[in-house]
């Protein structure tokens, strides 16, 4: 009966086209949702991977980035001086985080921030991120009002290396601009010497947290437990804590994205339902004729479902093409075969659910009723 379904769709070209367009939009939203959710998880995983074997010590109950955390520099120094923890001192340091612009959404803690790092230790944050100026350290010394800008901040300031920008009323010279990092906390940050940040934001003698890197990452849990015991008033944050927190924070955007996808699919489903419902109502007489000629109810149901399925499946390739284009434009990973299959399954289910009632109605048409239909 596929041939009959195709002929029926071909006869009502405008309606078929509009329905396919709506399905396309729905499938596109589902595809985008899958890609975006995947991208968010991927970014989070990549970001958190960098915190393996690292422990943040900060004020109790504060989150990461620890804008609300305040520790005395003396406490930080005391922790760093401990020889029993097995610290890799080259990659351990006190840090100060200052939020200069709040995020637009609850799950984005900051749009811009300044991070203070002891001079010469900026690699702790920057890691392997390349600088487009070739300069990624504070060559000018501890007291210099200098900054290395993340890509996003540099774009916002339209800053170039060697230019001055103003941070909290103080002129700061840009000495490096980083290439885009997979760590968004680096992209939105101006990384400055610790002393300069403390002075500019009047936080002398204060830090936000102490970043501890262990020589043996397998001892992370053990060291964290010991620190919790020794400093009960402080918060000890490990990679596991960050993961739990990140998952909590990600819940909302993922739910938001998923609801967009679900809405798209529901819209597509309703369009399929209304299209098929109209088609069935218009074709009552045809279905009656088929029944009179000997079509069983299941065959009538099949015809309607096949039409809906064709409508839905035609919308999938162009929608997924758009998703591919969008993922390219957004520099995210395009959907893989699994996601493609997932999307097709969603679409088929939506089409079947949408067409179920019209199909049932069509199957209930009695031959006699249809022959009297005027």
């Amino acid at each position, binding site marked *: 009966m596929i041939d009959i379904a195709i002929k029926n769709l071909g006869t009502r070209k405008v309606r078929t086209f509009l329905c396919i367009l709506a399905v396309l939009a729905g499938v596109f939203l589902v595809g985008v949702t899958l890609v975006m959710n995947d991208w968010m998880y991927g970014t989070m995983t990549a970001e958190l991977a960098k915190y393996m074997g690292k422990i943040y010590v900060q004020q109790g109950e504060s989150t990461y980035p620890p804008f609300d955390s305040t520790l005395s520099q003396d406490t930080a120094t005391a922790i760093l001086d401990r020889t029993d923890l097995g610290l890799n001192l080259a990659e351990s340091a006190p840090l100060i985080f200052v939020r200069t612009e709040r995020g637009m959404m609850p799950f984005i803690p900051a749009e811009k921030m300044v991070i203070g790092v002891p001079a010469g230790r900026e690699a702790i944050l920057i890691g392997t991120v390349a600088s487009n100026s070739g300069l990624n350290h504070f060559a000018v010394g501890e007291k210099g009002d200098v900054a290395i800008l993340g890509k996003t901040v540099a774009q916002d300031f339209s800053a170039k290396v060697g230019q001055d920008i103003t941070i909290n009323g103080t002129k700061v010279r840009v000495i490096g601009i980083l290439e885009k990092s997979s760590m968004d906390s680096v992209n939105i940050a101006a990384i400055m010497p610790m002393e300069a940040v403390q002075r500019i934001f009047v936080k002398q003698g204060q830090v936000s947290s102490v970043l501890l890197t262990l020589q043996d990452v397998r001892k992370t849990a053990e060291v964290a437990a010991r620190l919790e015991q020794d400093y009960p008033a402080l918060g000890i944050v490990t990679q596991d804590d960050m993961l739990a927190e990140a998952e909590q924070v990600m819940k909302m955007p993922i739910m938001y994205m998923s609801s967009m996808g679900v809405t798209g699919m529901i819209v597509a489903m309703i369009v399929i339902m209304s299209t098929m419902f109209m088609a069935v109502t218009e074709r009552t007489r045809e279905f009656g004729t088929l029944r009179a000629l000997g*079509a069983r109810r299941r065959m009538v149901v099949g015809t309607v479902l096949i039409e809906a399925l064709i409508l839905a499946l035609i919308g999938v390739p162009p929608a997924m093409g758009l998703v591919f284009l969008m993922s390219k434009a957004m520099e995210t990973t395009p959907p893989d075969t699994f996601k493609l299959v997932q999307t097709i399954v969603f679409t088929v289910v939506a089409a079947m659910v949408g067409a179920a009632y019209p199909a049932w109605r069509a199957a209930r048409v009695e*031959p*006699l009723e249809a*022959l009297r239909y005027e």
Partner: protein
Amino acid sequence: MNTIVETKHVCKTYGMNGVAVEAIRGIDLTVNAGEFVALVGPSGSGKSSLLYLIGAMDSPTSGEVLFEGRDLAKLRDGPRTDLRAKNIGFVFQTFNLLPTLNAFENIEIAMRLAGMGRSERQSRAAELLGRVGLSERAKHQPRYLSGGERQRVAIARALGNHPRLLLADEPTGNLDSKTGTGILELLRTICSEDGQTVIMVTHDFRAASYADRVLVMRDGRIRGETKLQAGQNINQAMEKLLELELQ
């Protein structure tokens, strides 16, 4: 002679806006194989209702409709549908061709529903198109066919499965008299040459005169019956029918 259809004191009552309308009031009828029977009568006489009951498209309120001895009222939807597909051909007043299919496909569809194989139904459809003189119009959709051509396609469709019974509901009702005569002659030929059993509903005495036997209906009952002789003058036949109508 083999009996194809037998009705035993069949009654049918419809509910219309809360009012019971007795469309058929106790009809006893026997139709034998190879007969061409016309049910004639004015609108509302119950002739179409009787045809639907005989065609297994409706169930009687009381009484029995037997198709080759099987009581149609006792069949569930599936077997009734199969019986329609394999044993009964329908020709409707408004042709009821499927608008998205061409003439050839419209003939083929009935055979598909009856489960006939592809090659068999294709050769049968081609043969029937030739029989009704529309081989050249095989690829035309119904909207490109004249009324007479559409009805010819509908007759070909009805014959596709070699039905035991062909039912025609006002087959000339939507046609001009010349085209209508062509359709009636075709039905007559099918009956005479193939031994096809035909029951035709019509309000037109001229059309009824093509049948072997004419039953005049009024108010849900058969008021009279006459047999027409082969080769009988059409005017004589019509006079006989008018006498019946006036009784």
